[in-house]
């Protein structure tokens, strides 16, 4: 630390406030204020040293420090070494730029802190100035005028009549391939071939009687797809697809 002996005593008091910091930026701002110069003129290197010194002592005193204080310490250490490196070895953004950004952040936080303090010190309603204690109140009595059209009325009655008629449900019979039969078919075919096969090759051939029906074929494709997913999930099959919407291929899991 570059500070004198009196500063050491002050620092000791500082640690007692450890719970008082609202994060590392807050601590940095407080340290910066101790330089007793305008925030625009603070020495970033000095500030870094103070912060790192603070962290080191806090660790020596075995104070619990939140992780973000340590992360800030690591970043400041990096910033310091970068500031001390020869100029032509710098990356982008330059350490000077990073130091400026840090300075701007401190200024912004400081401005908000000052703004908050000045705001709180204003004449506040309910503390310094008062609204009328017992206002009579303004009353607006709402009168509803209801609107309804003749057609709405009649139609509403018609709807009730319709609703009260007995309803008969008819379910059309559809040709489907069930999931169970799809799983049975796909897994038995998987046992035969060791190569990758496209999903469509698992469908029953269209030449076989009812399987020429396009609706049934669509159902078979859907069920076989779900069957393939199920077999992959249970580890019995491997799935592969080269591209989106590309052919879906599967083969028996090698185990």
């Amino acid at each position, binding site marked *: 630390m570059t500070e004198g002996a009196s500063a050491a005593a002050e620092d000791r008091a500082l640690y007692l406030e450890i719970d008082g910091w609202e994060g590392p930026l807050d601590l940095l701002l407080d340290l910066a204020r101790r330089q007793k110069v305008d925030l625009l003129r603070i020495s970033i290197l000095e500030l870094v040293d103070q912060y790192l010194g603070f962290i080191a002592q806090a660790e020596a005193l075995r104070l619990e420090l939140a992780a973000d204080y340590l992360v800030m310490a690591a970043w400041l250490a990096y910033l310091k070494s970068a500031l001390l490196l020869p100029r032509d070895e710098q990356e982008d953004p330059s350490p000077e730029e990073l130091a400026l950004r840090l300075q701007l952040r401190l200024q912004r936080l400081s401005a908000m802190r000052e703004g908050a303090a000045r705001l709180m010190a204003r004449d506040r309603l309910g503390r310094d100035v008062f609204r*009328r*204690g017992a206002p009579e109140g303004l009353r607006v009595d709402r009168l*509803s005028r209801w609107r*309804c059209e003749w057609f709405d009325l*009649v139609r509403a009655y018609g709807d009730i*009549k319709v609703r009260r008629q007995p309803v008969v449900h008819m379910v059309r019979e559809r040709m489907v391939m069930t999931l169970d039969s799809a799983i049975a078919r796909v897994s038995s075919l998987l046992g035969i071939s060791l190569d990758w096969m496209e999903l469509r090759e698992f469908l029953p051939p269209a030449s076989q009687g009812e399987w020429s029906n396009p609706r049934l074929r669509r159902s078979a494709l859907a069920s076989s797809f779900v069957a393939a997913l199920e077999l992959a999930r249970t580890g019995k099959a491997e799935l592969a697809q080269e591209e989106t919407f590309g052919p879906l291929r599967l083969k028996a899991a090698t185990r």
Partner: protein
Amino acid sequence: MSAMAEAPDDLVRAVEATLFAAEAPMTAEAISAHLNGIAVAAALDELQTHYASRGIHLVERGGRWHFETASDLAQLLRREREEVRRLSRAATEVLAIVAYHEPVSRAEIEAIRGVQTAKGTLDVLMEAGWVRVAGRREVPGRPVIYATTPDFLAHFGLASLRELPGVDEMRAAGLLDPVDDDMIQMVITGESGRAADGDPD
């Protein structure tokens, strides 16, 4: 400006502010105690005179002082606003049932609609002036029965309830066709779905 000529002194201002902020009327003693024991009678006088011509008056009632709105302006504090509101679907249905079946009890309305009818729905119809209580049915429990009003006929431009279309006419007009968007909607969302438009039902 001449109004600025006679600015009140600080005591008058303090009494003015104290009474303004007070949550209840205050006696002169209480005001004085609030202001470190200064005599306030003169200030109260001055304020009362000042406010005599304004929209608010400083008045004393039973030894307690407070500000209140000038009595000639009291009607300003209450204002009526009329809003035109569309009758909810449920209320429209109940109204239709009353019109087609009057006089009808609430239990009968519910039986016809097949849905419970909140008390509020009938209240709305009575507030609208279209439905009235028409006595009680002389059956056990003596339920209240409802009927339409002359206002109802006037609003819908009907000479009498007989002018409402019959079921056959409705069917002819397609109003009873089973496949009906509204009805599908009703089946999907359930009765309560439509209540969202401000229906208490």
